């Protein structure tokens, strides 16, 4: 159904994120400025200054300290949000493991930007995909609207499975581009997202401690519990998304298939590239080529069953990775091959490094790649598209 109480605003992707955070009523945030994340921080400060956001906002000397403060605040039992990008996310790396290990349901927004050296300010997802082993749920957004909706959904997911959530959208293509965004009414969000009231938190009445030393057996059990929570996160994401869709009429799934019926080639990608591929798919369909798009929205945990179902019977898959793992290639390419391994009549998976470092990938270029791969055996390694 359509949400009639929402307000349509012209927002950048980053301001849409700030709106999503504001509507989720976080109690605490800690943020450090970094391009291209800063409009998120500034907008939240603006909301707070005007009395529209009732949250403590800490601005410490580094992203590392920001995440350190987020984790301890979360342990005190309050709702926590933060945002960062590239170098900042990498500086937090140690604390990302810490947050996940302590099962802190923090929601963080990351603006995907090239990782130095050399310096760049361009869209590239290596910063966040390289954090895939830290124990954070990871979602990728294609638009400002989706980013706003996903922030709100992420608190529901994080708090349900006691696991932090990282949402990413691409630098500039999404972060700084203006688009009309439906901003839901506060009452709508309040109905969807009740206040965070955890069972366990640091409390002088109980005197219990957290983060201290454990035995090898306790540590191992702890990791098993984290793994179990990750598996539950797939259903939690699906259900949180479906519930949001029932309220406001917008849902995204854990993956999305676009014009994949009878497709002989499915292009798999994440983030803003999905929009470009959508356009290319429309063009190719118009000229009679049976091509579809599979958008990976939930990257961690990787929704393997959904991916296998969606790609069953598809002869060829083209993965477009806007990231690069030297010595491996495209991360999504490797992940997808691993997920499809052993599947009867698995699709041929062609991996291309497309748009790494912010290099432009036009719909025309994507069409060329699509035509090329259908006539070739896939290479084991990812291939540079540009």
């Amino acid at each position: 159904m359509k949400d009639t109480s929402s307000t349509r605003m012209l927002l950048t992707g980053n301001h849409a994120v700030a709106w999503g955070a504001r509507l989720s009523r976080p109690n605490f945030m800690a943020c450090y400025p970094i391009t291209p994340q800063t409009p998120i921080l500034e907008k939240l400060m603006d909301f707070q200054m005007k009395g529209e956001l009732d949250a403590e906002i800490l601005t410490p000397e580094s992203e590392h300290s920001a995440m350190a403060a987020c984790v301890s605040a979360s342990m005190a039992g309050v709702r926590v949000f933060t945002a960062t990008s590239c170098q900042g996310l990498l500086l937090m790396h140690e604390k990302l493991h810490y947050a996940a290990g302590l099962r802190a349901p923090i929601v963080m927004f990351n603006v995907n930007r090239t990782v130095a050296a050399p310096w760049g300010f361009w869209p590239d997802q290596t910063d966040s995909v390289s954090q895939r082993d830290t124990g954070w749920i990871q979602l990728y957004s294609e638009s400002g609207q989706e980013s706003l909706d996903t922030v709100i959904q992420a608190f529901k997911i994080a708090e349900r499975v006691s696991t932090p959530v990282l949402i990413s959208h691409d630098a500039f293509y999404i972060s700084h581009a203006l688009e009309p965004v439906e901003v839901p009414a506060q009452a709508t969000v309040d109905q969807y997202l009740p206040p965070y009231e955890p069972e366990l938190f640091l409390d002088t009445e109980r005197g219990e401690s957290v983060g201290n030393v454990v035995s090898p057996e306790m540590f191992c059990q702890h990791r098993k519990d984290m793994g179990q929570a990750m598996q539950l996160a797939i259903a939690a994401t699906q259900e949180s998304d479906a519930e949001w869709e029932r309220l406001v009429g917008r849902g995204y799934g854990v993956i999305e298939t676009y014009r994949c019926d009878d497709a002989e080639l499915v292009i798999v990608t994440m983030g803003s590239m999905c929009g470009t591929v959508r356009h290319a798919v429309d063009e190719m369909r118009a000229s009679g080529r049976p091509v579809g798009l599979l958008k990976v929205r939930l990257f961690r945990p990787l929704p393997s069953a959904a991916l296998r179902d969606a790609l069953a019977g598809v002869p060829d898959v083209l993965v477009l990775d806007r990231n690069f793992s030297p010595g491996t290639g495209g991360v999504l390419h490797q992940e997808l091959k691993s997920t499809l391994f052993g599947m009867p009549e698995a699709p041929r998976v062609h991996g291309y490094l497309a748009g790494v470092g912010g290099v432009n990938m036009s719909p025309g270029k994507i069409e060329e790649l699509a035509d090329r791969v259908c006539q070739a055996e896939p290479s084991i390694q990812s291939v540079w598209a540009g």
Partner: protein
Amino acid sequence: MLRSGHAACPGCVLALSLRHILNTLGPETMAVAAPSCAALICGAQPCSSMKIPVYQTTLESSAAAASGLRRALDTKGKQDTTVVVIAGDGGTYDIGFQALSSAVERNEDMIYFCFDNEGYMNTGGQKSSATPLYASTGSTPAGKLSKKKNLTEIMAAHEIPYAATASAAHLADLVRKVEKAKGIRGTRIITVLIPCLPGWGLPDDEAIATARLAVDTGVFPLYEVEEGQRYTLNQTTRTRPVKDYLMTQKRYRHLSAEDRDEIQLMVDRNWTRLAERSATS
């Protein structure tokens, strides 16, 4: 407030100091512990040796984590809960220094306790920037060639509401300082000198005597600084030469008479500066 069965080395005065600090702070207290001897004394989760909640963070982040905890408690209306940091000198002078400086600059409402045993003693005894000149450690076997960083003066330069040094050999003074700190809002820091029995090369029953010698010789003067301006030296005189302190510790066994004289001169200079500041403020 510190239960028996904790994991301190026999004879360690960190446990003694911690017990007096916790008893003074009372039960409406939460601690953020950096990995350190103090954190190990706290022990395992969820039931630590301390009767208050202890959140152990990573080595470099205790002041940041305490800031987050403080602000979160504020949002819950728990302004009366005292947030303290318990950290070692490595987690304070070295890797945690950036976060500490930032928290002090923001004047976060917390009491930061640095248990200064002048090195990374929990990892087997390596030098930190709190290790004094010429002291031998696992990573400075021939003696450290640079001086100890002056944490209290650096904190004073931040115009921190309250900075003090304290000693396990002067427990009444320690308790008074904890009480005073508890009555002040903003960031407060108390550095407690903890002679490390294995790290400094001391017999198990010599920690208190060594801590007392550090004060009596002026190596570790007891003093307070309020708002970075008002200095109070808590002792009127020095009663012993520095060599009395140096000669009892294995970490200084390799020192020549000239080395000891050089350290005496350094201590004299520091004492004179402190005495002047105390007299004029």
